[in-house]
């Protein structure tokens, strides 16, 4: 594994929503194959940060690089094609299509309209399809309509769609939100399986889950960078303690 290679480089990123500074001057470097967890209280700007990386929100300052390439404020589908996959907090899948159809869409080799006018078979990553369905426990649900899946299964389906697309960087916004303890455990198994194959950034509140998966943690507070380090370091960090205990924030 090439540990030194950088996959994601965020330089002084910020956004101002007509007067409200949601994120300001945020910088972060994520190495290839790393699993990074973003922590922070509600409103710390974690989701906004992800929105800016994947092109959902237009940043007003700073830059984002994917490897060597700058991707700041490019349209979402362009950023996605360059290799950033995003999973949303509220699971979003194609509800009227079957699980297999959902995954087939994600497994398409081509993205343009005209290149896709042909029939289904050859232009889909079939081998990956089977592997990912196995990994995400969906192989028995292939013909079910996605709208009928349970909450946990819907989350896995969306995760599976991302994995099949095989992006360099995966952004996950609370992948275990609303899951039972058992489902959370399964999800952490999936995540550990992905470790090293993709560069992953996760927003998560469940500390047990974070302990299970994280390499390194970045803490945000009120739209700013607060701390970064291994989980043991973060737990001892005074600034983090102050911010979380709500002693009026950091001085």
């Amino acid at each position, binding site marked *: 594994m090439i540990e030194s290679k950088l996959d994601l480089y965020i330089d002084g990123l910020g956004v101002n929503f007509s007067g409200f500074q949601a994120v300001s001057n945020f910088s972060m470097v994520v190495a290839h194959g790393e699993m990074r967890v973003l922590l922070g209280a509600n409103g710390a700007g974690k989701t906004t940060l992800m929105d800016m990386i994947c092109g959902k929100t237009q940043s007003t300052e700073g830059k984002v690089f994917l490897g060597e390439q700058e991707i700041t404020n490019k349209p979402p589908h362009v950023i996605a094609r360059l290799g950033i996959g995003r999973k949303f907090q509220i699971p*979003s899948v194609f509800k009227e299509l079957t699980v297999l159809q959902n995954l087939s869409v994600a497994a398409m080799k081509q993205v343009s*309209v005209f290149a896709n006018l042909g029939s*289904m078979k050859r232009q889909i990553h079939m081998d990956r399809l089977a592997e990912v369905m196995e990994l995400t426990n969906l192989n028995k649900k292939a013909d079910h309509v996605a709208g009928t899946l349970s909450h946990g299964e819907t989350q896995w389906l969306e995760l599976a769609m991302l994995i099949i697309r095989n992006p360099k960087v995966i952004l996950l916004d609370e992948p275990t939100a609303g899951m039972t303890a058992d489902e959370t455990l399964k999800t952490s198994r999936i995540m550990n399986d992905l470790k090293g194959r993709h560069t992953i950034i996760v927003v998560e509140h469940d500390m047990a889950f974070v302990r299970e998966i994280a390499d390194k943690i970045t803490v945000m507070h009120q739209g700013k960078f607060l701390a970064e380090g291994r989980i043991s370091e973060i737990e001892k960090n005074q600034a983090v303690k102050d911010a979380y205990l709500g002693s009026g924030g950091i001085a």
Partner: protein
Amino acid sequence: MTHSHLKIMAYVIFIVTVLMLPLALDEFWLNRTAKYLIFGMLGVAVSLSWGYAGILNLGQGMFFGAGAYMLGMSLKLASPTSLEQGTESPIPDFMMWNAEPNAVIDLCCINSGSFLWIPFQSQTFGLIMAIALPVLFAWALGSIIFSKGISGVFISIITLASVLLMRLLVVDNQALTGGFNGLTDLAWFTVFGYEFDPYSVTTYYLVACSLIVVLLLTRLLINSRSGLILQSIRDDQNRAKYLGFDAAAYQTFFFCVSAAISGFAGLLYVITSEFASPTFMDLTFSITMVIWAAVGGRASILGACIGAIAISMLGSSVSESELFVESWQAILGLCFVLVVLFMPNGLAGIAHGLCKKFVARQDDKKQRNEQNKAEELTKGGAA
């Protein structure tokens, strides 16, 4: 027998019926049925855009009207009356009526816009424009709407306003378009010297085969990878975007295809009915198309097609009896409300459900048979 077998059977039955109809119908009914089949084609266009792309277009009539007028202009210039008037080039009669006293009687300059008619002396040009203009409109409208991320009810409002605007322009420019009267007294459509008499079997087959081709091509398109991606965009546009698909490009493309089908229907309608009228761009007509698709089943190409044919057939025979002349529109409206409330997938949805039950029962039977056989075998073994 599986579900897809039954689907194929439905298509086969429909196609065979359409092709066999001339055996049973006289000239008058043949011409009428041809018009219903053209409405069926409009049902396909609405289903593609509403059911598969999630774009509820309340102005489908603008594409139909554009197609009708484009070929209508060519057929108008080719009519005997137009050919008799004018010196160098044929002149439509309404242009003569609207001409200034000292105007030059020529297409170039009888009025300020008449030069636009010059290329329509070629029927081929009219034919090409009947598809190209609707596609151009759809492309212009679609690339604005979809790249701005406008969706849902706002698309409906914009398309509704567009069709009204177009109708207004057509009605207001009487000297150029024939205004309220539209284009009447048209020549027959002619290919290599063969004239398509609107009341002939040949014209019926022209329409029937066009419908079948459109139906099958649309089916292929939906079954393609792009068709699947289109449906995924309908379900969740954002998810598709963040997988790397340019949602606006897909929506614009299929919006254009839907417009092309409508334009094609428009040109066929001019051939069979011998007129083009601004009523094609009436709001009621565009909304009627949506009702066809809703009742037939918007998520089914064939369902919407049959819905359009059945309702327009019912409508014209029912509104001939005095009892229903006034109330037919109200009945149609009521049907729409009931369908939306109680069978969101229309008639096709019901057929779909029945098929599913049928297949499930067959599977059940098969299983039971096999079980019985197995039991007999074990019994036989024991004896």
